[in-house]
């Protein structure tokens, strides 16, 4: 029952995050919202596992957390060096 309450909170937050991801004026807003969606997925996984009484597959949550980080950092790195960055080439001119 208590897990159900927390799940509802996470679902509300998820909806709000999706709203920001769709609205977000800059790509950074979308990225922030996407990061939050990833965290919500982890929390949903953990809470749902506890609610159904089978919290064994929590290690997937660890994978999600790492993936979330990798995705965010990849996008940011691209932003710094890619077509939107100010550098001409990745290897030539860092910064």
């Amino acid at each position: 029952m208590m897990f159900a309450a927390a799940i509802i909170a996470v679902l509300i937050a998820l909806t709000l995050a999706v709203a920001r991801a769709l609205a977000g004026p800059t790509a950074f807003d979308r990225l922030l919202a996407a990061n939050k969606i990833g965290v919500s997925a982890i929390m949903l996984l953990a809470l749902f596992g506890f609610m159904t009484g089978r919290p064994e597959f929590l290690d997937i949550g660890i994978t999600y957390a790492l993936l979330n980080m990798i995705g965010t950092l990849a996008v940011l790195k691209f932003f710094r060096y890619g077509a939107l960055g100010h550098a001409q080439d990745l290897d030539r001119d860092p910064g």
Partner: protein
Amino acid sequence: MEQLINMVLLTLLALITIGIIRVRNLFAVVVLAGAYSFLMASVMMVLDAVDVAMTEAAVGAGISTVLALGALHLTKTEEAAPRFSAILPLFVAVGTGAMLIYGTWELPGFGLADTPMNTGVGLDYLDRSMAETGIPNVVTSVLASYRGYDTLGETVVIFTGGIGVLILLTAVRRRRRLAGDRDKGSAP
């Protein structure tokens, strides 16, 4: 509760899909696709297919994001305006969707006990899975144990695909760098 979670998640999925179609900035599309993949993984998890959820998150949010960014490095970040009207493609898509939905009417209802999948070999798996493999989740045991070679083959295919894309992307970058060297060489 499960139904509520599913309803919310699927609605959000539909919203994000519409967003992906509407947004013209390819960069935002990549980010939204990552979010989509995390939501889809959550749906899979609620459906109790844990390892499918993990694959979805790893491939969708991890590898595809990185590969799509690598491809984006070689193109523009703004999608070009469509040159033709969208009426005919829309018609084709709606027609296909209608036919697919019509096709699902013939399928047995979700979770009925007297359907082929619940009377035939499926029961066998449910009975013997725990004793034979020791894996508590039947989906996992079928995927990773009974069909282990099949899954290994899929993994090899996906790995090869990823390597191929990486080779393509680095080859183009290398060529570009060499071209840049020549530019510098020819400059006074």
